[in-house]
């Protein structure tokens, strides 16, 4: 059996379980379903973060900004202007993408300097959300943000509905990521990591491509943030721009395998669910410590993360290991 066929079967099975199996098995278990929704929310940001890192070659410490801008844009549009929730969610992504345009000058920076600049940038938006009281409600936050509506008799406002929405966002984001990676653009972006001068010399508009990846990553993160706002129906600046929205996705992506498309998703589900269902009952305070140890162990034993470690078993011959 070829590797691509194998991958397709695994992916199809995983999607079938996610769309049919999970609702059937856990549809009644609101607690676990809620945890899975939270894990997928992190997964969505993790995919966006890995997309920027792998394709754009940029390490971001500022994805909380895009998450927060997306959630506030969507919440405010739905509350103050009566925009339908699904449309507002997409506009939340647009809002985050627009906010990332202000970040474009930082593309001149590289490596740690870009990471630090974007970290500082994230704070600007948190301050804006706190100070622009008239629009955002200030530090008090926004209460009773409209939930997802009932469409075709299905209650998207409930836990199961939310699960299906966030699952779809994550799956679409991962598919988009995969499609870009396989395209000529993806090849050019990969080439840029080796030597940016050489890619320019062959006619690649490298600055434009990097900018496009930043905007796309911000868009995805904004949509996920917007989803979260309508799902939990509450926002305040400390929560929406919390550094947790940066740290957890990075940890998830590294744990799952940030070089792969599905690694961040698997990583987010693994660390969040294991943490909440296994470690939290044992160690109510400081259960994150175990997570830290696990992450260190993963880096030691499989620096590429969980996905490459799982793949190594069935397929010995691995010519495309660089993927």
């Amino acid at each position: 059996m070829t590797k691509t066929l194998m991958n397709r079967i695994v992916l199809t099975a995983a999607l079938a379980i996610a769309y049919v199996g999970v609702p059937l098995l856990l549809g009644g278990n609101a607690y676990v379903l809620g945890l899975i929704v939270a894990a997928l929310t992190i997964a969505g940001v993790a995919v966006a973060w890995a997309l920027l890192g792998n394709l754009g070659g940029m390490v971001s410490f500022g994805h909380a900004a895009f998450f927060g801008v997306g959630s506030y844009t969507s919440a405010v549009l739905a509350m103050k202007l009566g925009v339908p929730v699904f449309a507002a969610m997409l506009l939340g992504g647009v809002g985050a993408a627009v906010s990332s345009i202000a970040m474009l000058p930082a593309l001149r920076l590289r490596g740690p300097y870009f990471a630090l600049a974007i970290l500082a940038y994230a704070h600007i938006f948190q301050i804006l959300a706190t100070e622009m009281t008239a629009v955002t409600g200030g530090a008090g936050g926004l209460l009773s943000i409209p939930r997802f509506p009932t469409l075709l008799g299905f209650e998207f406002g409930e836990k199961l509905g939310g699960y299906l929405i966030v699952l779809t966002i994550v799956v679409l984001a991962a598919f988009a990521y995969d499609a870009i990676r396989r395209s000529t653009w993806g090849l050019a972006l990969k080439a840029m990591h080796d030597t940016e001068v050489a890619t320019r010399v062959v006619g690649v508009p490298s600055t434009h491509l990097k900018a496009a990846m930043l905007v796309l990553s911000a868009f995805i993160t904004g949509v996920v943030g917007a989803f979260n706002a309508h799902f939990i129906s509450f926002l305040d600046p400390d929560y929406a721009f919390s550094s947790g929205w940066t740290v957890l996705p990075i940890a998830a992506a590294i744990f799952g395998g940030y070089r792969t498309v599905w690694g961040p998703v698997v990583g987010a589900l693994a660390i969040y669910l294991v943490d909440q269902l296994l470690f939290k009952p044992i160690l109510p305070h400081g259960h994150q410590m175990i997570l830290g140890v696990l992450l260190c162990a993963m880096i030691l034993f499989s620096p590429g993360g969980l996905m490459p470690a799982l793949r190594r078993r069935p397929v010995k011959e691995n010519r495309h290991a660089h993927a």
Partner: protein
Amino acid sequence: MTNALDILTLRAGYGAINVLWDVSLSVETGKTTVIVGPNGAGKTTLLRAIMGLVPATAGDIRVDGQSRKAMKTWDRVADGVVMIPEGRMIFPDMTVEDNLMMGAFPPGCRRDWKRNKAMVMDMFPRLAERRGQIAGTLSGGEAQMLAIGRGLMEQPRVCLIDEPSLGLAPVVVDEIFRILARLRAEGLTILLVEQNTSRALKIADHVYLMQSGKVVLSERGDRVDLERLHALYFAHETAA
């Protein structure tokens, strides 16, 4: 007939350090123009300025009579000004075939990329044999062939070639120059930078000698006297 490329009193450099001092030269369409000169003369900087990798602070760069000074590097490539850089700059982690595909990145080149690839493979049978190999594992000569092949994938109107013989064994240098002679015979417009003067002169229609950021000699290829060129070439270095 206008020249393929005109450089007019060009100044360029790196920040506070200016390298090119009012360089003027022309590349005739369909001809091979050679720039020779010692290390540090500004030859590579000139090519980089023509590509827009180094900003030009004064003067002009014209392709077929039109100024290209304000254009982005990638737009100049799409416009047909192609550089085969010093040190090859192939993409080491990609296969030979993907490297060639990268050469066809400008939208105008993508349409014909299969035909151009067949042409390159025909010109370099060694690349055809190694199409699936990771480019970082190629020998120096093969890597140079790949760099030239990648450049040809960009459908050049003007091809800037920077020291293709650098670091190669004499037999491989022979092979590279045979290829350059063939490209010249096919009518490609070439601007070649080379330190191997005797080899380069054999395929030159026109020769420029650069020293310390200036053009100090401009002569038709068949009129250049190697002795005199070498005397000029080395005299300035010992004097300075």
